[in-house]
């Protein structure tokens, strides 16, 4: 049995107090001085540990309170109230909701899976990834218990081109030379951040974390710095400028190189292969309605990895934008229909916010997924986008201490890894490679609506 891949975690406290949903408003004036004050009886000791963080002026009351409302209910003079915390309302946006951000913070701090206790109280379905459910028919089989089960569930994936079939000569010698390939133990690659404060320390942090969990982080040509050389095994270099102007000695040592899609893509790939035949070349392609045709064309031309990018809300670039899962499904099925799917690696990214999105995107046809904003959130980002507007970052992410940031990202990915194991265990799938394109093991709300609810409406 192969050595079980495992990410060790340890709690890493936040630098800044977390922002929680509600704030306590406790009047001191009018206090009856009861011998048994409700504040002293708080089971979490919230009022005893009270402190104020002067950087954000946030009261520890608001980060420690668990919303049990005992003090609010029991104060005889009604001096304690709870209100929505304005800072919480302002976290993120319609897609990167405060709930998602808080869950990511929790995972980065603890490395654990967030559980909601007394069942799920949210809506039945939503848009985007929420319009998809995965099969859980094997959830009761203890041996497949994802995290602690006895059967090993492998999340390893291969990046690179594959032969459709092996060819042998009459003597049995292999005629098809193997393509270079890179294996990663978890189908996650760190992507370029859509916005961030100056990235010097952030890049070091991402690369340290990529090294720790044995994956790759995409670094742009502009962000390249000789101090990053020690991470060469974990860098996927994105050549945005003139590739010939880049240090050839470095190119020779890289295992993954990415180039933008364009007219010269085949020419650049050939040039790079001339320098480093062992490197696997990826092409970064904006996701749009033409994606499936472009995918087929590039696959037929001999490319190795196609990396499709949606925007930060998971939308493609069409006039009526389609969500990433639907567009990737289309690309995957088009390649399957034409008999090319197994030859190419599909990466997909943009709008991947939680562990379940990762599993769902793989089910829709991606081999592996690229992640961006959650990594920044692990470093305590509020998704306020002030840095994109040139306003100082409220949590000073540019000054992150790389070992600390690395540990938080490691925790986040460990949590996602365990969630992926849970999803795969519940589906009865033991290989991330086999999860790819398993659409028959998932339900899509649009399909259910069309197949089940529409006929009911028609009957009436």
């Amino acid at each position, binding site marked *: 049995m192969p050595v079980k891949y495992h990410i060790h975690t340890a709690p890493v406290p936040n630098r800044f107090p977390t922002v929680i949903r*509600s*704030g*306590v*408003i406790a*009047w001191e*004036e009018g206090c009856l001085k009861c011998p048994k004050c409700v504040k002293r009886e708080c089971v979490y000791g919230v009022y005893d540990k009270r402190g*104020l963080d*002067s*950087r*954000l*002026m946030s*009261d520890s009351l608001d980060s420690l309170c668990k919303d049990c409302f005992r003090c609010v209910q029991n104060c005889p003079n009604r001096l304690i*109230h709870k*209100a*929505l*915390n*304005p*800072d919480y309302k*302002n976290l993120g946006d319609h897609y990167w909701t405060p709930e998602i951000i808080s869950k990511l913070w929790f995972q980065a701090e603890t490395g654990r899976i967030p559980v909601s206790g007394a069942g799920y109280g949210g809506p039945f379905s939503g848009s985007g990834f929420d319009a998809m459910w995965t099969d859980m028919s094997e959830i009761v089989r203890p041996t497949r218990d994802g995290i602690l089960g006895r059967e090993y569930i492998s999340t390893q994936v291969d990046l690179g081109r594959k032969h459709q079939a092996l060819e042998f000569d009459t003597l049995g010698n292999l005629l098809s030379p193997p393509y270079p390939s890179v294996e990663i133990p978890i189908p996650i690659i760190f992507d370029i951040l859509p916005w961030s404060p100056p990235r010097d320390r952030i890049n070091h942090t991402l690369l340290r974390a990529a090294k720790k969990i044995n994956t790759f982080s995409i670094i742009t040509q502009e962000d390249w710095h000789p101090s990053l050389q020690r991470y060469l095994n974990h860098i996927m270099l994105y050549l945005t400028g003139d590739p010939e102007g880049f240090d050839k000695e470095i190119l020779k040592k890289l295992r993954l190189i990415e180039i933008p899609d364009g007219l010269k893509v085949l020419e650049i790939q050939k040039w790079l292969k001339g320098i480093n035949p062992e490197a696997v070349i990826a092409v970064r392609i904006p996701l749009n309605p033409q994606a499936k045709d472009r995918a087929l064309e590039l696959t037929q031309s001999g490319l190795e990895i196609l990396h499709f990018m949606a925007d930060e809300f998971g939308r493609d670039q069409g006039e009526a934008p389609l969500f990433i899962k639907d567009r990737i499904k289309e690309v995957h099925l088009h390649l399957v229909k034409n008999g090319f799917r197994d030859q190419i690696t599909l990466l997909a990214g943009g709008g991947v916010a939680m562990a379940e999105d990762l599993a769902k995107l793989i089910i829709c046809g991606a081999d592996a997924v690229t992640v961006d904003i959650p990594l920044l959130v692990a470093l305590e980002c509020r998704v*306020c986008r*002030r840095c994109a*507007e*040139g*306003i*100082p970052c409220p949590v000073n992410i540019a000054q992150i201490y790389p070992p600390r940031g690395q540990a938080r990202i490691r925790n986040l990915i460990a949590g996602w890894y365990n969630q992926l194991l849970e999803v795969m265990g519940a589906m009865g799938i033991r290989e991330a490679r086999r999860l790819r394109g398993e659409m028959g093991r998932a339900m899509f709300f649009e399909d259910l609506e069309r197949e089940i609810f529409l006929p009911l409406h028609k009957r009436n």
Partner: protein
Amino acid sequence: MNKENLELNVAIFFCQQLDPDQDSNRRVIEKELGPGIKFFPLPCSGRIEPLHFLHAFESGADLVYLITCPVKSCRYQQGNVRAGKRIAFAQNLIREIGLDPERLILINIDPPLPKRIDLLTRELLEGAPVKGHSLLSRL
């Protein structure tokens, strides 16, 4: 805006009722004044404690404002009244430690609500007392 006040560090505490779009509205000023201005929205102005003001001065603020909603429009009925009492208490403390209590300013805004926090801030900074840097921020 008064040129000398542009150089000052200003902390503004305000009730969230004032401007539902405060997070986007205040960005123009944050961009203009950089780290010199800090906004702290509160669930209710009555939530403020004297300690908040002391911490703000300790962290280098030269002027500290507390903006409350208009009289009788507090959702918690007495929040703005209590905020007034706390500011008076904090001013005494500040005087006792040898700082200028006039650097701590209470603004009870007039109805109607909402008001844009960026416009309000410009108005405040326009009419701010010319005080120069506080003793603590010069340390």
